[in-house]
């Protein structure tokens, strides 16, 4: 349902134009998982932010971001607000920083749920606890009243996933969801994302710099290099037969276990 066509993005800082995305085109086929892969500064996160309309004022965008046939770039701030969360959900890199430290998890989840569904406070709380149980927070009914700093980073990411899923988006964008996690939690979070994707019938975009993550969890992949898509297609074919030198390098960068 998401179709990005020839997206150009520049940041204008002190009257100087810095090109960030060049003629970027991406499609997320219905029901599929797309992986966006590339090194730091290749424009992965900025792509996610432009789909959510979260770019800073210094950004200048042109091109089309088609969502259900409508160009999001023509949207007003109110129209953006109406699709944020309820149509497209975003999961952030650093989950602990993405939660407001002065409110309990319950407070923030109930606020989110009540904004998007017509539920009473008690119903919203019950829904929130149910969702936290689904993302494997043990003792969710008690833990929900804790503050974000009382959870580990992995748990915060589960909470963010639960909170984002509670808004029932059609498309979930996970912006390096495992960047700040250890290897075991990484696997658990990625598995959880794939699970909720099929349970709630969403499309999924996983942004990562780790080819191994993409290989395991994505149907399609787009390789980003200096703001350009250098290669895209089905994950299998790209891994078997990478055409671009940069893709080859990325694949070679996956650490392999070798025995001496």
């Amino acid at each position, binding site marked *: 349902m998401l179709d990005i066509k020839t997206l150009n993005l520049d940041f204008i800082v002190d009257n100087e134009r810095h090109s960030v995305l060049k003629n970027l085109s991406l499609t997320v086929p219905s029901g599929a998982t797309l992986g966006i892969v590339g090194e730091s500064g290749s424009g992965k996160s900025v792509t996610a932010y432009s789909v959510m309309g979260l770019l800073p004022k210094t950004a200048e965008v042109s091109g089309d971001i088609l969502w259900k046939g409508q160009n999001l770039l023509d949207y007003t701030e109110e129209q953006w*607000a109406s699709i944020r969360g309820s149509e497209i959900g*975003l999961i952030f*890199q650093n989950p602990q920083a993405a939660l407001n430290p002065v409110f309990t998890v319950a407070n923030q989840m109930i606020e989110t749920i009540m904004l998007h569904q017509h539920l009473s406070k008690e119903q919203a709380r019950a829904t929130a606890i149910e969702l936290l149980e689904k993302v494997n927070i043990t003792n969710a009914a008690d833990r929900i009243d804790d503050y974000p700093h009382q959870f580990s980073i992995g748990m915060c990411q589960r909470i963010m996933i639960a909170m984002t899923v509670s808004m029932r988006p059609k498309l979930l964008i996970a912006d390096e969801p495992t960047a700040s996690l250890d290897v075991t939690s990484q696997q658990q979070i990625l598995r959880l994302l794939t699970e909720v994707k099929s349970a709630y019938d969403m499309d999924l975009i996983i942004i990562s710099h780790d080819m191994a993550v993409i290989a395991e969890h994505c149907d399609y992949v787009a390789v980003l290099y200096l703001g350009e898509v250098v290669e895209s297609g089905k994950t299998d074919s790209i891994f078997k037969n990478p055409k671009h030198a940069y893709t080859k390098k990325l694949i070679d960068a996956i650490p392999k276990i070798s025995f001496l």
Partner: protein
Amino acid sequence: MTKKLLFSILYLTTLLIAAVCVPFFSQDPTLIDMAQLGSPQPPSLSHWFGLDDLGRDIFLRSIYGARVSLTVAFVAVGISLCIGVLVGIISGFFSGLVDAIIMRLIDTLMAIPTLFLILIVQVMLKPSIVTVMVVIGVSSWMGIARLVRAEVLSLKERPFVSACKARGLSQRRIIFKHIFPHTLNPVIVAATLGMGGAILLESVLSFLGLGVQPPHASWGNMLENSLGFLRDAPWMALIPGCLITLTVLSLNFLGDGLWVLIDPKARENNVRHKDS
């Protein structure tokens, strides 16, 4: 907790309790004792702080003066907090042109000497405790606005603000529910220090006859009243003078103490971790 802070809290609590409770226990402080009229009496066992030239009990008048001073402090600081926080948040959050206009306006207002501005306003209006509170409040919000603006400027770049936006929360909700509580720490300190300033300003105005009007008691007009008796009855000037000094000093110590207590670096060690 330092001794200074402990002393300030004890002193201010005592003063507050006395000021709140005094009307339940005593007669009218403006009552004139005809038998004692004419010459002030020094402190004695029956009148702890002595009597003034109209035979009024100075202890009682001091506590009624505390009522005035504390009310002025709370209400004036309340007014300046409301204006300052609102202006600061708007200025910081929207930045750009709005911010530039508001900041230049604040610069202009700050360049005007507050005392003279208040004097002029008080001369034009009919001076009373209400006008004193409003005028002090309306003329002292600029510092708080700058403080809040600086906080908001850095807060709005924090990831949780983008996360709130990504959840479709309205701008108003993000500003007032999610950003506002984070600005409270410096604001509480500034408000405590501001209360000392407000008490001092009220005393100055009443001393000049442009604040609380006699026969109502206020520390400022008690001082003014004592001017004619400085040689014969120095306690009439010393008592309200000491009270003003002690109260303002205590509020400043309290502000400094709070600052240390809520400084995030000092708190860091107490963060509880419940990892799984």
